[in-house]
């Protein structure tokens, strides 16, 4: 029977922050809260530093060429979240281009750092996207 549940919040019974969801193969479960992205960003560093869209960002800081800090609305519980970052090459698609986690500055509970490098130099990019998984505070 098809079913529909209308709620504004889901909370675990045994542990408020832990709900199990049965996996696609029907034999194992995964943790709902831990499997959800807690922070994501699509950002344009070239055109006036604008968000394309974001979840759980309250503001940003233009740190310098190619580098932006995104401050969160809801903090994570610790510095040990897992983030992924990718970006668009600007000057020449033959350039070696990559985006990286910004070392120690990336590992705070309050913000996430994006850094785009192109042909060995910091460069503003029109598209930088990031997503982070981890534990909310």
């Amino acid at each position, binding site marked *: 029977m098809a079913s529909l*549940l209308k709620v504004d919040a889901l909370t675990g019974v045994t542990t408020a922050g832990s709900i199990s969801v049965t996996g696609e193969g029907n034999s194992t479960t995964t943790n*709902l809260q831990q499997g959800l992205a807690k922070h994501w960003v699509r950002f344009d560093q070239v055109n006036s530093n604008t968000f394309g869209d974001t979840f759980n960002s309250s503001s940003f800081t233009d740190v310098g060429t190619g580098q932006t800090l995104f401050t969160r609305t809801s903090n994570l519980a610790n510095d040990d979240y897992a983030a992924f970052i990718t970006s668009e090459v600007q000057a020449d698609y033959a350039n070696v281009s990559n985006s990286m986690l910004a070392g120690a500055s990336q590992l705070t509970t309050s913000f996430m750092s994006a850094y785009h490098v192109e042909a060995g130099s910091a460069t503003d990019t029109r598209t930088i996207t990031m997503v982070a998984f981890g534990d909310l505070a």
Partner: protein
Amino acid sequence: MASELRVNTLKDAAGNNSVAMTNVANGSAKAWINLNGPTGSARDSLNLSSVTDHASGEFSTNVSSAFANINYSNTTSQSSNTDIQNRAYTFVGMHQSGGSGTAIVAPTTSVYRFLISGGSTLGTNYDAVYIDVHTMGDLA
């Protein structure tokens, strides 16, 4: 009291923001890790049973609950240890051979192998201090 709820669709109380349970299951990350490359240990993780440190910059992550098939999707980002403007790359399933990644190691339903290369010297494999991996796919 522990409980189990079986539904096909979730909505907010106003009847908006509908999401099917198939999307909840398919759209959730099934495994992730924040890995300390030099120590080969996880700072935090989901669905991780162990990490194998094969060689400099070359690791395998092993999950507790296996995937249904090997067609899952991984994304990986890493830090550059010495200079943020250095070039650093992650290669999926690469196996180190003679100091450079030359052989492909296919993933299994429980093991994903990858190689970090670049940093201060192109073509040199290295243990990034921060290596983050996410996996999306179907659990067994």
